[in-house]
């Protein structure tokens, strides 16, 4: 399940609702990851663009991988502006097994950072500035420059 929100994600509600959704599913381990906007470098917040068709197919491929391991994934992300100290990203894995869950949340979050078609902007002095220095080319990038 992939949920997108305009502005901050409703972290408390998601953490509780996801727990309750799977309360009877007999998963032994639930590991959420929550990403919150830090006050640094004088920004007033971050802003995000998402390309949904490819985000959805990326997430579906991960859900399939989770299913093969007996696990499931849930994810929520913000579109648009997100103020300091609020959250823009919540992901979670549920698995019967602790070790599967610990490895999967790590691998999922790392691949998310490297591959999910989401662009980040600093909000500073009323401007929306692409965070080029913290961004990563998706694997296979550059073929048009050859």
């Amino acid at each position, binding site marked *: 399940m992939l949920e997108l929100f305009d502005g901050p994600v409703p972290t408390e509600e998601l953490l509780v609702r996801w727990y309750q959704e799977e309360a009877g599913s007999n998963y032994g381990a639930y590991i959420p990851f929550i990403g919150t906007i830090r006050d640094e470098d004088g920004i007033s917040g971050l802003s*995000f*663009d998402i*390309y949904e068709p490819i985000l959805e197919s990326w997430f579906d491929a991960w859900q399939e991988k989770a299913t093969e391991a007996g696990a499931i994934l849930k994810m929520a992300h913000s579109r648009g502006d997100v103020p300091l100290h609020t959250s823009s990203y919540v992901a979670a894995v549920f698995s019967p097994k602790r070790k599967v869950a610990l490895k999967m949340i790590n691998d999922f979050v790392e691949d998310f*950072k490297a591959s999910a078609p989401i662009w*980040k902007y600093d909000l500073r002095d009323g401007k929306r500035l692409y965070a080029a220095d913290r961004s990563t080319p998706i694997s*296979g990038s*550059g073929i048009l420059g050859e």
Partner: protein
Amino acid sequence: MVRVEFLGPIQKEALEVEASTLRDVAAALQSDAEVKDWLESCAVAVNDTLVKSLDTALKPGDKVSLLPPVCGG
């Protein structure tokens, strides 16, 4: 004609390009000053599937998307 779309921070309207493979798209974009500097760092999707070869065949109406470096979370 295929439609070329620029995602995220690339501030550019979509283009219509005559192309039978991605190689034709690359040639058209390399001569476009506005977008040239993005090409080295962009991934490419055809009809919302990422592709990795310039030999990828295109047919009229296909959508080619350029995805600059990402940073979700």
